[in-house]
């Protein structure tokens, strides 16, 4: 099947879609002046604030910026440790 794909050139994503996705990603950072360092700082402070009250998995925590239709979102994914 893979060979078939290679022969007929259907395995690659269309380059226009690649362009669009890359642009979306780069523009999120162009538009909001949030550096990776600032995201790290935010992450550290969030961990500090939340772990006082909830047992969270600090290593699994992610803070990212994503692009929505109307807003760009600051998304924090914070896994909570199960007690049992």
């Amino acid at each position: 099947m893979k060979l078939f794909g290679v022969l007929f050139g259907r395995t690659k994503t269309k380059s226009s879609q690649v362009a669009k996705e890359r642009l979306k990603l780069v523009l999120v950072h162009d538009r909001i002046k949030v550096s990776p360092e600032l995201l790290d700082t935010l992450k550290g402070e969030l961990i500090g604030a939340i772990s006082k009250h909830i047992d969270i998995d600090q290593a699994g925590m992610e803070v990212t910026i994503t692009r929505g239709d109307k807003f760009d979102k600051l998304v924090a994914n914070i896994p909570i440790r199960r007690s049992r």
Partner: protein
Amino acid sequence: MANVITITSGKGGVGKTTATANLGTALAQRGCKVAVVDADIGLRNLDVVMGLENRIVYDLVDVVEGQCRLRQALIKDKRLPELYLLPAAQTRDKNAVDPKDMIKLCDQLREDFDFVLIDSPAGIEQGYKNAVAPADQVIVITTPEVSAVRDADRIIGLLESAEKRSPRLVINRLKPSMVKRGDMMDTADVLEILAIELLGIVPEDDSIVVSTNRGEPVALNGKTRAGMAFQNIARRLLGDEVPFPEFNDGPGLLGRLWGFVRSRPIDFKARN
């Protein structure tokens, strides 16, 4: 009272000067009195694109510095009696003029013209600021490429923070055949990313090169694809509702077969 419209892009080489010359031409053909202003001081080109390079005596900087009157610097077009060019200085730099000078200059032009089109230099520095300062409307021009769209996004952001009226977009050099095979972003892709109003789509057209070679804007010949596209944009600037045409003229069956035959070995090599 004239409408002052600045054509800008951020990135160089996407077609600001060509668009300015052609929109000026198309508007003048429709009976509007138009002044096109080259704000790219030090790198002037609007004069050659319009075929008026041999008629320059005074330029924009001469007017700003009071070396001549505005009327003396305006060059009448060869073909259209309602079209005038105010050329940029070639031996000076962008700092010879500031935004206040441009506003004052355009206020003078407003008295005599229906439209003042300003050809902005590339970039986001002094020259761009000068070009945008007097604008009532801004046209952002881009091509469907990553670098041009990124820079257009930057310009749109800057215009928003300068509280200019929301700019409108012209997508230039669209290649329908590449869009068709998924190798070029289409209009919807670009609009999704930039999220501003679409003013026009100009398809890639060899006749642009030919017309620029001759110094005769392509809009003079409404039969060319690009010329027609610029005519449509001019009509939209005048408030007409002009539908956006589909460009479905990619290669025909034979062309596609040839493309298929030709592209296979290259694709194959790329994967090895």
